[in-house]
């Protein structure tokens, strides 16, 4: 038998590349496992409001695990601000902390922990972990006043500060944190968890270098970025050139209830795509502004859905994308604008791009959803007199697709692998009783050839003597948008029903007092429909009637035919 040998390319072979990429993904997976299993804060272990990643020495994303989409594009800007700040004065074993929205971050609650990774006497990568801390000080528990007017009400900011030097914790920084947050044990517990994740990443990267050498690892980084870039360009090239415009309305900013009109122009030319937010209003008074880092993340989320929804994320995918936005708008806010509820603003940047692209690529997009995370806080003191803060994002209805009904009760675009809160756990932990958790049949959904998915109703009865409720609900007036002749979805709201029957409907609201026996009713909307309702299959209408999702009369009225 002949022995044939073809030498692989001199320095780098594709199989080694594939194996290194597999290892990098298992490194970020391992970071995420450590984070969820050890975190003390429900925002992290239930909501998965954190992300872990590895970037190259220039801050370009190489591998990432996300529990949610909010951190799709924030790592690069944060690491570049670390590089800008420290230049060459970072050393093995250093760890930098940053939570500054104006240095690539999101809001002050999101603490990024960055660890440079050195090998063969040079900086080869950064390991990064960002996680939402339940409280970072500021005006109110949870650090997110829905009516904040300045960043200074939103807690402690540490803009690129070393929290460890050569693997020694800098105790003075830990002390500053401890003294400036309301739940120091939780914060320090989460800090430990985060430090463990970047330490593990460093260790694992050292193993890869030990096996294959730093040059091979760096060549693999470059190859990965180039490959993703080429594939993204190819997809953009296949889309029709042109300018696609979308507009939307944000229902108030938390301080000012007036509608805020926003717009985007998406321009596709050859293999590049430009997303232009020129014409959006200046930063608002309230905290739904986002800074440029969060805007980029919001646009990248939808871009990712367009070019590579199922592939691991890295910076290469985003190279064909450029984002234009003048400084100082509500999507590019500057110090000292408040950004606590930034995701309520940035989600609209995502949805604008989504809405602009949906008509040209219906197989990738659904119609408009309930959009807003509808975050609800119920805080007070339990029987033992201890402070409790229950925080939960709400799930809601998603829009219909061109080939099927919308999904019921899913988490909004900004989150992702985010679980709803178990009722049995809530009741074991907090002085609250859940009286109903079910589909929002009363509110309904956007009708269409395919209808939107149903939102939810969750009703709490307050068992504590006294407590307070605050919330940030968007889409309380402007319902989810339909596609192709369908109808709009339904809106979100929170309603406090006092024991005496008086009721108060809220959207974005600062703390409202509640007392034992009061009910807090949380309602999320149904998604928009796709196609004309008159084209809906009769069998589908009948099935909805049998399931108790629509009354016979409403079906008759909306879908026209005798049911």
């Amino acid at each position: 038998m002949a022995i044939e040998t073809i030498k692989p390319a001199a320095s780098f072979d594709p199989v080694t590349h594939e194996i290194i990429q597999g290892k990098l993904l298992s490194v970020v997976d391992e970071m995420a496992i450590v984070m969820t299993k050890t975190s003390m804060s429900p925002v992290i272990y239930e909501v998965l409001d954190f992300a872990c990643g590895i970037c190259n020495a220039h801050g370009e994303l190489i591998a990432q695990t996300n529990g949610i989409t909010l951190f799709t594009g924030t790592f690069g800007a944060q690491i570049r601000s670390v590089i800008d700040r420290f230049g060459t004065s970072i050393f093995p074993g250093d760890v930098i902390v940053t939570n500054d929205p104006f240095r690539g971050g999101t809001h002050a609650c999101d603490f990024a922990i960055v660890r440079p990774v050195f090998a063969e006497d040079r900086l080869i990568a950064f390991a990064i972990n960002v996680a939402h801390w339940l409280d970072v000080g500021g005006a109110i528990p949870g650090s997110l006043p829905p009516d904040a007017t300045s960043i200074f009400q939103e807690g402690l900011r540490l803009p690129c500060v070393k929290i460890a030097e050569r693997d020694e914790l800098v105790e003075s920084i830990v002390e500053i944190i401890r003294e400036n947050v309301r739940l120091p044990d939780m914060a320090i517990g989460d800090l430990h968890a985060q430090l463990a994740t970047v330490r593990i990443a460093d260790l694992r990267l050292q193993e890869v270098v030990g096996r294959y050498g730093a040059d091979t690892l760096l060549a693999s980084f470059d190859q990965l970025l180039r490959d993703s870039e080429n594939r993204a360009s190819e997809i953009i090239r296949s889309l029709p050139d042109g300018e696609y415009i979308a507009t939307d309305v944000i229902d108030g900013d938390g301080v000012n209830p007036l509608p805020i009109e926003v717009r985007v122009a998406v321009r596709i030319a050859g293999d590049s795509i430009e997303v232009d937010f020129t014409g959006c209003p200046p930063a608002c008074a309230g905290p739904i502004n986002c800074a440029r880092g969060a805007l980029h993340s919001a646009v990248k989320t939808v871009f990712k859905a367009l070019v590579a929804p199922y592939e691991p994320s890295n910076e290469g995918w985003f190279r064909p994308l450029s984002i234009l936005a003048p400084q100082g708008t509500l999507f590019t806010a500057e110090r000292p604008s408040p950004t606590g509820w930034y995701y309520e603003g940035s989600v609209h940047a995502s949805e604008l791009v989504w809405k602009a692209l949906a008509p040209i690529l219906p197989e990738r997009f659904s119609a408009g959803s309930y959009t807003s995370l509808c975050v609800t806080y119920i805080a007070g003191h339990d029987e033992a007199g201890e402070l409790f803060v229950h925080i939960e994002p709400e799930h809601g209805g998603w829009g219909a697709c061109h080939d099927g009904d919308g999904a019921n009760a899913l988490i909004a675009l900004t989150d992702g692998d985010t679980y709803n809160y178990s009722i049995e756990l809530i009741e074991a932990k907090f002085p609250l009783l859940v009286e109903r958790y079910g589909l929002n049949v009363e509110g309904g959904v956007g009708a269409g050839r395919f209808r939107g998915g149903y939102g939810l109703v969750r009703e709490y009865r307050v068992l504590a003597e006294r407590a307070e409720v605050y919330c940030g609900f968007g889409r309380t007036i402007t319902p989810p948008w339909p596609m192709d002749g369908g109808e709009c979805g339904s809106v979100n709201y929170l309603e406090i029903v006092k024991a005496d029957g008086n009721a108060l409907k809220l959207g974005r609201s600062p703390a409202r007092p509640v007392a034992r026996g009061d009910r807090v009713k949380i309602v999320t909307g149904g998604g928009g429909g796709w196609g004309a309702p008159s084209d809906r299959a009769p069998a589908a209408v009948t099935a909805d009637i049998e399931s108790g999702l629509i009354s016979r009369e409403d079906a008759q009225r909306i879908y026209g035919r005798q049911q």
Partner: protein
Amino acid sequence: MIRVATDVGGTFTDLIAYDDTSGAVVFSKSLTTVDDQSVGVLDAIAMAEQSGLGVDDIGFFVHGGTTVINAITERKGVKTALVTTAGFRDVLEIGRGNRPDLYNLRTRTPAPFVPRHLRFEVRERMSASGQVLHALDEEDVARCARQCREQHVVAVAIIFLHSYANPAHEQQCAELLRKELRGISVCASHEISRQWREYERSNTVALNAYVQPIIRNYFDNLDAALHRKRISCAYYAMQSNGGIASFEQAVTAPLTLVESGPSGGVAGAARIGSEIGETDVLYLDVGGTTAKCSLIKAGQPKVDAEYRLEKTRSSPGYTIQVPVVDIVEVGAGGGSLAWLDPSGRLRVGPQSAGSNPGPACYGRGGVDPTVTDAKLTLGILDPLTFADGRMPLDVDRARAAIARVSLPMKLSVEQAALAIVRVAEESMSNALKLITIQRGHDPRDLVLIVSGGAGPLLAASLGRELNVKRTVIPTHPGIFSAWGMLAARPRADIRRTVLKPVSEGEMNSISQLFAELEQEATEYFAGTDTARLKFHRRAEMRYRGQEHSVSVAISGGTTRELLSDFHTAHQKAFSFAIMTATVEITMLHLQTEVLSEVIGLPNIQSDERNTLENALKGRRLVFLARENGWVACSVYDRNRLPIGSLIPGPALVEEPTTTTFVPSDQAFTRDETGQLVIWGETSMTRSEGEAA
């Protein structure tokens, strides 16, 4: 006494019979009968009888199979209703509302097993501490019964909030429904799980009810058929927790059979480990489409409290609360397809050629390359002796298939084949690392046991990559799950959600609760001599404020011991411990095992005819990575190898169901119990050091 195990797989039903006294083993393999699997089981018994199995001597019969998982995956369960606390009928449909498929803007939660029009609400309410807030409304229950009758449901599941803390309302409701609905399966959630989280418990009880009538019917048929065969011993079913249960116990909680087959292999690996004096074992089973791995510590597999049915990277699947041995599965097996992604990167799996058309070399129309094609191309598989010579393989087709990826990669066919094997091995070794290194266990302390038709081909390289103590290919690697079932004991895992700080004041109530669980276990095993019940107490603990807990074996009854066990476990798992934080217990877990005789390993008598020369079947050219070329390797017949000789690689060891490959830097022996033990350079040095 003869012990018999039958394992129903997707294609074949395996039978293994072991005679305790003579050590004789009889196998048979019949085609799995899809409609009624008991027919295939009886066929296998009939075939074994022809090979000398005497049914009169059968004293132990254990059965594992895929009936439960098939009924679920094929959605062939019965029409099922769900009765819930008023206000919560949609919990089952809402699920957890998560979107693991982050960037898919068209994603959805998988459909519930009970549709909305069959989910009924009754007024009742318990508090989290188990106090009655609202008594059960019996008229509501009567209305539900009426609706169930009108809708002709075949099974009813009941889920009330906080029934894990106080099951009284569920019990009352179940009793009423059983009275009203004769002949209909009624399951209440607390009968299957006493853990909190209402969605997961809803799914558990709904799926249990969904398959129960089918499983009852199935076990009734099998029971009758076995009796007709005059097999009159006790019959057992293999459970997912690595233990066995009586048919009756299995019918009560059929969901506990969901991973019946794979858990047989885990039980077998634990058994082999303890026979060869190794209680810490890493077990890998490589089948046609997937590889499954498990870690066994101190002779016990890790048993999870939850099982994520149909969970994938993009779907949340359906979480159920049943004890299942911790198995990590990767989509890489013998039939896994190799392909180039749009960037030209070589990928292997998760798509598989399956059994039809199968790998290209089967000559049944497959054209894309698989791991098996790569192994054949490299000379590791013999085209003539595959499957005991019953299925000749086509080398030309295998090479042609490999060429589909080698040409674009500008590699030779052999190098592309090596690359395919390397990528497949890498995904398996990543999975093995996930359950070892990433959880704080050093593979150098572990023995790797590898089974499955495709496992022994790559066992040695994986062992080297992980740097394990040594690698063992057990006897009968091709039907190891069935063998393992003979090594399983009756076992129950009882869990109870509690929420208590670890403090002096709570220790009494904790030991009180454990005593209750032991009582429950004793009742479960009623009729068994209590002296034979072995209890293992475990607790799930966490730092106050954490959500996830670490499972800790309880070594002593004092607070100090409990705390120190927990801090150590946390440090080991996550690389830090917080000595000052408050520690909470979230769940008590009692493992109960009935100490019973299980299959042993025979002591193989040295046979003078078994010499290296006699075992040598010939030489075959194999394309080796290290040598980057074709090298002549010795090919041995496993069953004729002399006992105890250390034989250097490179070598191929053949047996009817598989081939073991030992590369040039490793060596192997056949030990006195028949296991094939592979040693790497480092492990050989180390063991010599230990000996000295």
